[in-house]
């Protein structure tokens, strides 16, 4: 199997959509929502509008990342799936431990929902960025 398609384009030279940029923006929004919620611990009625907007933005950006990603043709999907599945297992474990720390410390339902959604974004977008970065440098046929 050849690295080079008919156009002779190396994986290194092939232009790709901004999957990593969108993923980082999604992760940043999830982190901001988590920081806002955590900084409101101990408040009687903490405002949830801003963190809700950030976590919603994180989810939308993650969906955008996936939409942009699945439209890449051709792509080294076998390698992507391999890295994504291992990364997902690792980051789901990390997120579950952090979520458990929130549960065991009686974080109220509203903030817990936002923190959980942020952790879902964290556990899924990081493996996407890992797998994309690996797969984009793999050889595929006709990478135009």
């Amino acid at each position, binding site marked *: 199997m050849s*690295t080079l398609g008919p156009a002779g384009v190396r994986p290194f030279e092939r232009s790709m959509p901004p999957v990593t940029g969108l993923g980082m923006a999604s992760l940043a929004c999830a982190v901001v929502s988590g920081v806002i919620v955590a900084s409101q611990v101990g408040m009687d009625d903490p405002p949830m509008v801003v963190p809700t907007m950030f976590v919603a933005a994180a989810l939308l950006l993650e969906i955008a990342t996936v939409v942009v990603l699945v439209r890449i043709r051709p792509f080294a999907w076998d390698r992507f799936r391999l890295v994504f599945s291992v990364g997902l297992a690792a980051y789901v474990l990390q997120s579950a*431990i952090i979520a*458990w720390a929130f549960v065991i410390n009686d974080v109220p339902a509203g903030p817990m929902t936002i923190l959980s959604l942020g952790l879902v974004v964290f556990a899924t977008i990081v493996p996407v960025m890992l797998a994309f970065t690996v797969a984009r440098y793999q050889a595929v046929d006709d990478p135009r």
Partner: protein
Amino acid sequence: MTDAVGVDPGSTPAMEHGPPPMDIRIIPPMGLPFVAVAVVFVLYAIGSNSIWALMLAHVAGGGMWTAVDLYVGLILGPILGRLSPPARAEFSARFMPKMVLLMPTLVMMTLATGFQIALNYGNLYPSSINRPWLVASMVDVGIMAVVALGILEPANIAVLFEMKKERPDVDVIDHLMKRFVYTAGVTGLMQVATLLIMTRVATQ
């Protein structure tokens, strides 16, 4: 959906002088028991709410995380950047797999226990003098997390996959190693802020 995937790059001018393929284990199995011990200990610390166990996981994990980031970013990184490509590749082949396991484990130890310690000491409550410092710390860690998880760690893993190829593309390795070194430098500098904040919190 599945496209043809080749892991054996063909020959191009840039690849002809690439480093030879290396026998690399991207996830070193020898390290997995240490990760398992760390995970079990963190679970014990959170579940038992033992101040000693929480502090050990947080301080040991955070201290090593900070030290490794500073060392890699400010000392090892610049040295690595000046090595010849074959020397850099050989060093990376032995160094990067350890980082794949070490850094996520240290981050998990630090972050999972940090929230509980802050609650136990009342440092996150509005009346606490430490609250602004902890919020600053969370912002600092958040920026580091986005940079490390979006750029540094993917570059780390991708460079290992590239070096495993029969004919690695030296341009890909150089590009990814530069990303790794620069982002390690950024996170290293941000760890200085972590040191300032955490020593301030501990002494107020």
